[in-house]
């Protein structure tokens, strides 16, 4: 975990209201694993929102870390307005990465909307491990669709403007007719989609790991502000920031 004052290397608009921003940080780049996130501070000088904004590490290329985000409010607007060469205070990498050491041979990646963010990085790690990948990407419409740096994609849009007309879990259900060799699902997206995906995984008896999102104040375990309901007896909550954001779908109640 590092807190670094970094330079923005590039800022690109990649879809409607969606920005890919990369910054240079050898330390964070080297330490990051797929599924982890960084927590980005809005410069004090402009009196923007108080708290940092968390974003999945979307890609790592040598010293560069890329995040991919939607402009949804003041924090993302201000971060998205940074220009090449501007400074940014970034804390990371944070959280528990996806588990890649368990015994699986086919990765089924399922993303809803900007839930796509962690998957380019995951894809490149899986490729190195020579694991087969299938990717299902859901989006409201073609204009919001982001799907670069992924493998074997199938697309679903809510309005049918591209690919399958419907939601991504439905698409997955139709596509996964035949049984695969040791599959594992990786999912990220809005909660209702993750709920549907968990149910699907349970029904099909496929292990499933989810990357969750929710309000965080600190991202590093200081505030206890990010509980996720756990299954089972033991303690009632896990912390999303330190015990997640990745969880097995069977570990959590969404």
């Amino acid at each position, binding site marked *: *975990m*590092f*807190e670094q004052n970094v330079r923005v290397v590039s800022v690109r608009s990649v879809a409607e209201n969606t920005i890919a921003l990369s910054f240079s940080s050898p330390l964070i780049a080297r330490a990051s694993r797929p599924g982890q996130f960084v927590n980005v*501070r809005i410069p*004090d000088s402009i*009196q923007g*929102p*108080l*708290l*940092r904004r968390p974003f999945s590490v979307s890609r790592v290329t040598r010293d560069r870390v890329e995040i991919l985000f939607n402009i949804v409010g003041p924090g993302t607007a201000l971060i998205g307005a940074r220009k090449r060469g501007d400074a940014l*205070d970034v*804390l990371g990498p944070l959280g528990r990465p996806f588990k890649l050491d368990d015994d699986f041979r086919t990765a089924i990646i399922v993303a809803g909307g900007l839930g796509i963010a962690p998957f380019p990085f995951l894809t490149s790690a899986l490729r190195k491990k020579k694991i087969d990948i299938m990717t299902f990407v859901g989006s409201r419409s073609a204009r919001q669709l982001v799907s670069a740096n992924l493998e074997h994609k199938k697309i679903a849009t809510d309005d049918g403007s591209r690919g399958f007309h419907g939601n991504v879990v439905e698409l997955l259900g139709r596509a996964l007719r035949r049984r695969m060799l040791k599959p594992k699902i990786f999912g990220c997206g809005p909660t209702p989609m993750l709920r549907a995906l968990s149910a699907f995984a349970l029904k099909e008896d496929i292990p499933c790991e989810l990357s969750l999102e*929710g*309000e*965080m*104040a*600190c991202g*590093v*375990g*200081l*505030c*206890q*502000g*990010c*509980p*996720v*309901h756990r299954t089972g007896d033991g*303690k*009632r*909550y896990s912390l999303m920031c*330190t015990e997640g954001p990745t969880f097995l779908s069977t570990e959590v109640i969404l």
Partner: protein
Amino acid sequence: MMRTSFTLKGVTFKNRVLVASGTFGYGDEVSDLVDAKRLGGIVTKSLSLKPRDGNPPRRIVETDAGMLNSIGLANIGVEAFVRDKLPLLRKMKTAVVANIAASSVDEYCRVLERIEGEEGVHGYEINVSCPNVKEGGLSFGTNRSAVSEITRRLRVLTGKLLIIKLTPNVTHIGEFAKAVEGEGADAVSVINTFVGMAIDAQSRKPKLSTVTGGLSGPAIKPLALAKVYESANAVSIPVFGIGGIRSGEDAIEFLLAGATAVQVGTANFVHPAAAIDVAEGMEKFGRDHGVKDLGELVGALEVDRSTSVIDSWQ
């Protein structure tokens, strides 16, 4: 060399900036980022007799220049604290203040007694912003006789530094400060969070699972300063000033208002080493202003009585 340290009831604090309860865990979460020995002290997360799961989500809402929280005192309980955390804290070379929360006066006593024999805790801070089960869940902290009773009962159990952390959600906080001073408290911490609320208009629901929560951060700094000023004018025991502090200059303002030292809370969430920056900022301020001991600034606000007493029409 300017003096930054101060001593209270035999405890020497390296500087006048502690991290506030509930905003720095048990000191070990961010040891990668924060060199604890540069902190004036660590106030632990509130400890209760048994571990507490805390409140259901949603626990956090960001507001304009502030945040609401309703953590529900999620904590590992005093046993696990003594067993797992205290050994790490002992190595940190900074003052350790154990913050205690409870839902009955007896529970306060039992938590303190459990810690009292252990080495490495330099003092106690008592969080009285807790529901009193005997009074149907009304907060101890808004009831002067309850706060007095807690102080009285704990005072006989320990000779160590005993700080009572007051809630700002009362009409005259000075009366509470006076009451605990009368019962032998060594200091007061001013303030805990302000009761606040956030609503999601779309769903017509409260944003926090518990409806109301505690407001902290820069938004409350002006309110906290007024509470510190009132408290410090009411008592002669030291006041720890808390509320929205982010910079050395903020901290100096609290000293001028009458705080002997400050605690940094919400700012840790934005920048885990915030308290160290605040301490350095204070030191720089002192140097720039020819101060020999930051203690000179405590209560040094220059008030022009001719205008200040005029009026408080609002």
